């Protein structure tokens, strides 16, 4: 009891240690991997950039989902859709009015207006979706949000609003072809590194052997994302440690009691649903927007599923857990398989030199099983690498089953993160 009191008083401090410790650990592991694979410095650094980037974007969207599912118990299965609304709105609002040939024009506003618009529109779509659904039983929200997410994706994919003109202003989603995002969140970062004083940093990096400016720009952007995660963490933590957050928890536990204690549960649910969806829109912007090109295919429900798994790994209800779960999922379950697939030839050669066996890839799962039974681990792994994207799905499913049975609270969900803005000790001992 005293230990948990102590913990709750110092939550800010040791939690930062967990997060930075995890990132440091991931950096060490991936540096080791890339060095083993004889990457040059730029490649090593770029790999670390990639895990930072994916960790950060996952952490953002998991933090947003934690407000819904972890805190309020709202089962939002439309995460991908709300991210799509955010990034498409941003792309349309801040797209140039006279882009290159065969490009679809935007509304020509500044990037910041686009970002704010993306967040606000994603939030509003969330509120509108929640209005009918929140009146009903909890399960309906899941059905409504999942359906909405698919409707959003199918509309974006269709020719419906591919390119439209309203009052002489032409804009559109690009349909199945997707949309180029010329003016995207990474643009200012890139610009910074291309002119003084940022260019000095680029030159220095080149001098020490990071010989690709895009890697330097990418690192800059990853650092910006890290800072955004930090700000977002402060924001959601303030929500969590406040009377507002206390009502959210009460809604999760028992809505009837929350209402009997005078809380207008519907109002709280609508507000938090809008806020969470807005943050998902922001995550969509910073994640997919920075690729410079968006396409409806990126927003299939499997992304929503991944985000849920990340939240469950970290522990629903814990903000620190959300960040940890986000980075573990992004680095180990999302990025690592992709990395191994891209480097399957040198990885397999390396394994073969240690274990022997054959690098010829078995064609069917039966053959792969045969290789495994025949103790030809190399051939088995070759099969795994060749089919990594479908195996990843199976693997994630297995992890989910394991967690549900053995550790339903995830890594941090068992902790008591008290919902109050002051320590709840007796007497005025704080400050």
């Amino acid at each position, binding site marked *: *009891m005293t230990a*948990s*009191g102590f913990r709750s008083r110092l939550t800010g401090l040791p939690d930062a240690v967990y997060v930075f410790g995890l990132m440091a650990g991931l950096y060490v592991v991936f540096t080791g991997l890339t060095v083993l694979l004889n990457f040059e410095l730029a490649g090593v650094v770029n790999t670390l950039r990639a895990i930072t980037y994916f960790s950060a974007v996952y952490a953002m969207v998991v933090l947003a989902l934690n407000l819904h599912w972890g805190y309020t118990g709202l089962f939002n299965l439309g995460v991908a859709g709300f991210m799509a609304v955010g990034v498409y709105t941003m792309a349309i609002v801040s797209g140039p009015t006279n882009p290159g040939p065969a490009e679809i024009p935007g509304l020509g506003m500044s990037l910041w207006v686009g970002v704010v618009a993306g967040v606000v529109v994603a939030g509003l779509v969330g509120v509108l979706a929640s209005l009918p659904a929140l009146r009903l039983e909890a399960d309906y929200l899941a059905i409504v949000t999942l359906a909405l997410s698919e409707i959003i994706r199918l509309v974006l994919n269709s020719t419906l609003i591919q390119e439209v003109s309203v009052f002489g202003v032409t804009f559109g989603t690009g349909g199945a072809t997707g949309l180029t995002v010329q003016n995207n969140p990474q643009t200012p970062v890139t610009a910074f590194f291309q002119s003084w004083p940022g260019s000095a940093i680029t030159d220095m990096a080149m001098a020490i052997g990071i010989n690709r400016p895009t890697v330097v720009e990418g690192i800059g952007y990853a650092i910006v994302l890290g800072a955004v995660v930090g700000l977002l963490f402060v*924001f959601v933590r*303030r*929500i969590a440690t*406040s*009377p*507002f*957050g*206390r*009502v959210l*928890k*009460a809604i*999760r*536990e*028992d809505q*009837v*009691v*929350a*209402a*009997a*204690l*005078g*809380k*207008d*549960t519907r109002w709280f649910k609508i*507000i938090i649903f809008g*806020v969470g969806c807005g943050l998902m829109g922001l995550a969509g912007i910073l994640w997919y927007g920075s690729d410079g090109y968006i396409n409806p295919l990126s927003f299939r429900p499997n992304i929503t599923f991944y985000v849920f798994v990340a939240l469950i790994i970290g522990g629903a*209800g814990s903000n620190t857990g959300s960040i940890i779960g986000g980075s573990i999922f992004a680095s180990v379950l999302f990025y690592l398989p992709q990395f191994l697939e891209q480097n399957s030839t040198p990885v397999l050669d390396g394994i073969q030199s240690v274990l022997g066996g054959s690098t010829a890839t078995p064609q069917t799962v039966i053959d792969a099983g045969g290789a495994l039974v025949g103790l030809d681990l190399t051939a088995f792994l070759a099969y795994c690498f060749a089919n990594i994207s479908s195996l990843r799905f199976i693997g994630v499913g297995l992890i989910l089953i394991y967690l549900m049975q053995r550790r339903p609270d995830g890594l941090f969900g068992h902790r*008591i993160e*008290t*919902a*109050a*803005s*002051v320590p*709840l000790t*007796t007497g*005025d001992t*704080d400050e």
Partner: protein
Amino acid sequence: MSESSDEPTAEPVLAVDSLEKQFGGITAVEDVSFDIQPGSLTGLIGPNGAGKSTTFNCISGTLTPTSGTVHFQGTEITDAPSHVVAEHGLFRTFQIARELEEMTVLENLLLAPPNQLGESLIYAVTPGLRQRVQKQERELRERAWELLERFELEHLAREYAGSLSGGQRKLLELARALMAEPSMVLLDEPLAGVNPTLETQLLEGLHELREEGYTFLLVEHDMNVIMNHCDPIIVMHQGSILTVGTADEIRSNDRVIDAYLGGDR
């Protein structure tokens, strides 16, 4: 309705008129009318299934009555949702304690006070405003600890409410309602499972609070508690009100004896 009661005093704090509640074909509550005087500790008794909890649910907005009206402090609250009823200052506890299990005992208590500044999202996250939230929470924290002391729950303050025993949950539920400083509390068997010493203390506490101006409507099956502490007493039977009166009147009422008390009294 009332056949005999205290002299009709000031305006009733709670007025229930011709309340009816049907579940499908079953009529759980039928033509129930009564007035509750401010500052009283009124008892509500009746056999299992008499409709006591359903009456509570209809008054508190947890259920919507089929017909009839409910007025609280002169305001009609008949079809008001339960959070509005609570905002008016009418709180209730549940017969089967409904704790917010994965919230600590302290969090349960701090949840109850109405209109907290920090229930506004803007106040919760904006630096200057948040300090005002913290100031208010420090005051609430003091009151929460006082209540914990009174209900002998201090040592459990930081535990999850879900880990409390049945009796402790009942206590927490009562403490939580009092934390809101409501003008009236509907108590649905708050003493079930509470040990006798604490029960006596709690009843004394209820009388103290009553003298301070709180009003209570108490459902209880323990006849000693009802007869010694409640005045007046409302008797329900099969969804309707059988009679209303003082302990002596109830004890000598033939219909009550037949329906509820049995021949041995």
